[in-house]
C-alpha cells in the first residue's frame, strides 16, 4: 500500500462522510447555515488532498515483512480483547495477560514476560487503585 491506495481510501471515506452529513435530519429551529454546511466544507478539502495524494504520491514507504504485520494485528486483537474482558475478569488478571503478551512480543523470554506482566499489573493496581484511588475495573473478585 502506498500514498495512492491511501488516497483512494480517504476519497471513499469522504464520500461516506458526505453521505452521512447529507442524511442528518435538521431540526426545525436551526442557525443560519445549519449542521450540514461545515462537514461539506471539510469534505471539500478532504477530496482535494486525497486527489493530490493520488496524482502526486511520495515515494513508497518501507513495509515490514508479512510476519510482522500479522504480529501487529495480533497485538491489536489482544488489546481489543483486553478492553472487552477488563470489566468481566477484573483488572489484575486481564492486565497480567495483556502486558505479558506485549513484553513477550518485544523479545522477552516467556518466563520473564510472565514475571514482568505480574509485576506490572500488581504494581499498577496498588499504585493507582489503592494509593491514588482511581476507579479501575474490578471484576468478580474485586481486583
Amino acid at each position: 500500500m502506498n500514498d495512492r491506495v491511501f488516497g483512494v481510501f480517504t476519497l471513499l471515506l469522504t464520500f461516506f462522510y458526505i453521505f452521512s452529513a447529507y442524511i442528518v435530519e435538521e431540526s426545525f429551529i436551526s442557525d443560519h447555515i445549519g449542521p450540514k454546511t461545515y462537514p461539506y466544507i471539510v469534505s471539500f478539502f478532504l477530496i482535494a488532498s486525497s486527489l493530490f495524494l493520488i496524482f502526486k504520491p511520495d515515494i513508497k514507504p518501507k513495509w515490514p515483512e508479512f510476519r510482522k504485520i500479522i504480529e501487529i494485528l495480533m497485538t491489536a486483537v489482544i488489546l481489543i480483547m483486553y478492553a472487552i474482558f477488563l470489566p468481566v475478569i477484573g483488572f489484575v488478571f486481564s492486565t497480567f495477560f495483556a502486558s505479558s503478551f506485549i513484553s513477550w512480543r518485544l523479545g522477552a523470554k516467556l518466563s520473564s514476560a510472565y514475571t514482568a506482566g505480574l509485576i506490572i499489573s500488581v504494581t499498577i493496581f496498588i499504585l493507582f487503585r489503592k494509593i491514588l484511588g482511581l476507579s479501575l475495573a474490578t471484576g468478580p473478585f474485586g481486583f
Partner: protein
Amino acid sequence: METLNFLIDGFRVALTLENFTLALIGCILGTIFGALPGLGPANGVAILIPLSFSLGLSPASSMILLASVYYGAMYGGRISSILLNIPGDEPAMMTCLDGYPMTKQGRAGEALTLTGLASFFGAMFATIGLVLLAPQLVKVALLFGPVEYFALFVMAFATLGGVASKNQAKTVLASCLGLGIATIGVDHQTGVPRMSYEIIELYDGIDFLVVIVGLFAVSEVFVFIENTNLKKLNEEKKIIIGNIIPKLKIVKKIVPAMFRGTFLGFLSGILPGAGASLGSFVAYTFEKKISNKNDTFGKGDERGVAAPEAGNNAAAGGALVPMLALGVPGSGTTAVLLAMLMTLDVTPGPLLFKQNPDVVWGLIAALFIGNIVLLILNIPLVKYFSKILLIPSKYLMPVVAMISFVGIYGISGSSFDLIIMVMFGLLGWLLRKLDIPLVPIIMGVILGEHMESNLRRAMTIHDGDWFMLISSNVSIVIWTITFVGFILPFFLRKNIKLTIKKLHK
C-alpha cells in the same frame, strides 16, 4: 507594575505544598518522558491528563502538573540525543549533530551540563517573554469576534506544517481527518446527532483523549513491535558520562550562542504552527552559519549543542503565548494542554486572564519554579536519569500501554472507548508509515468544535453573507498570513530538504 502583582499572586498559588509537589513530580516525569526515545511531550501530557482528571485536581493544579511535564520533556529530550545519538523526542533531533560527537570524545558529561544550562537559559527567557507578551496579546484579542476567530483557526491549520513541512497535502488531509472526527456526535447548536448512526456511544462524540492516547501511545507499541529484531536483542548498551563540570572558558563561549538560540526559538514558538522542532532547527542552522569558521560544527562543537537546546526550550515557552492569550495553540502539545483546560470548563483566550488569573499566573510562576527544579534535576542528577535509558523496551512498553489504558478507563469506564483507542493505535501506526503527520489530526479533533461554532456564529451575525468573513481589517491580515504561510513551504521546501541532507551526511 500590575503584572508584577499578578505574578506575586501567581507565586502564592504555585508555592502551596500541593502545587509545588505536583510541579516537582511533573518535572521528574517530564524529564523521563523526554529522555525515553519514542515518548515525546505530547504523549507524556496525554497519558497524564486522564490521571489528573480522575484525581480531581483543580484547573490550576492540573495545568501546573502538565506544563511541568511539557517543560521537563524539553529538557529530557537531549539526554538520549547526546548519549545514544537517538533523539528522545523530535525537538531534540538537532542536538544529536554535535552532542553525539562530544560523547564519542568522552565529553558526554560536559555536553549534558552545557545543554542543561542552555535549556534553562532558553526556558527562563521564554517564560519572561510569556509574562511580557501575553497580556499585550490579550488586549489585541479582545477586539476579535467570531469572524476573526474562525480565520485564526484556519491560520493555525494552514501554517501547521510549518516551513519544514514535507508534504502540504498530507498536512491538509490529516487536519481534515481530525476536523471530520470532531463533527461526530450531537451538534451543539441544533441538538441533532451527526455521523453517529444510532450508536449511543457516539452521541457524545469521540473523546479527544481516546484519539490522542491511541494515536501516540498505543501506536508506539506497534512501532516497537515492528522494530523488534529478535536476533539483535542482546547488545549491551553502555553509558559513560564522565566529568560534568565544563571549563569556564567553554561556558563563556556558548553564551552568545544561547542568546541567539533563545531569540530565534522564542520567535518560532510564538508563530502558529511552528513549535519546538522548528525552533531548534532554526537555532542550529543559524548558529552554524555564523559560528562555523573553523569547520568544527558536526564534530562536537559546544555551540552546536547549546543553540538548538536553548532554541527548543525557548520555543516551548513561546508556544504557550498564543495558546493562553488567544486560545489558539500552535503546536501539538499546547493543543493538548488547551483541550485539558477546556474540559475543566476553563476557556483559554483573552477572558482567561480576567476570569481565572490563578490559572494563568499560577502556571507562569510554576514554570519559573519548575525551571529551577529542572536545572537541578538535569545537571547534578543527570546520571540517574540517563540510567532510565538502560531499561529495555520489552519491559517499558507494556507499562506505557497499560498506563494509557488505565487512564482512559479511569475517566469513562467504558470498554467501547478502549476499543476505539486501539483502532486509533492501528491507524496511527499506518499513518506514521505513510508519513502523514499525527499532530494535525489531534489539533483537528480538539479545535474542530470551536472552529465550527465560530463560523456558524459569524454566519448568524452576518445573515449568511460569506463575504463578511473577509470584512474587517484584522481578518484580512489573518487570511493573508494564512495564505502566505500555506504557500511558502512549496518554495522553501527544497532549500530546507537540502540543508537537512547536508547536516545528516
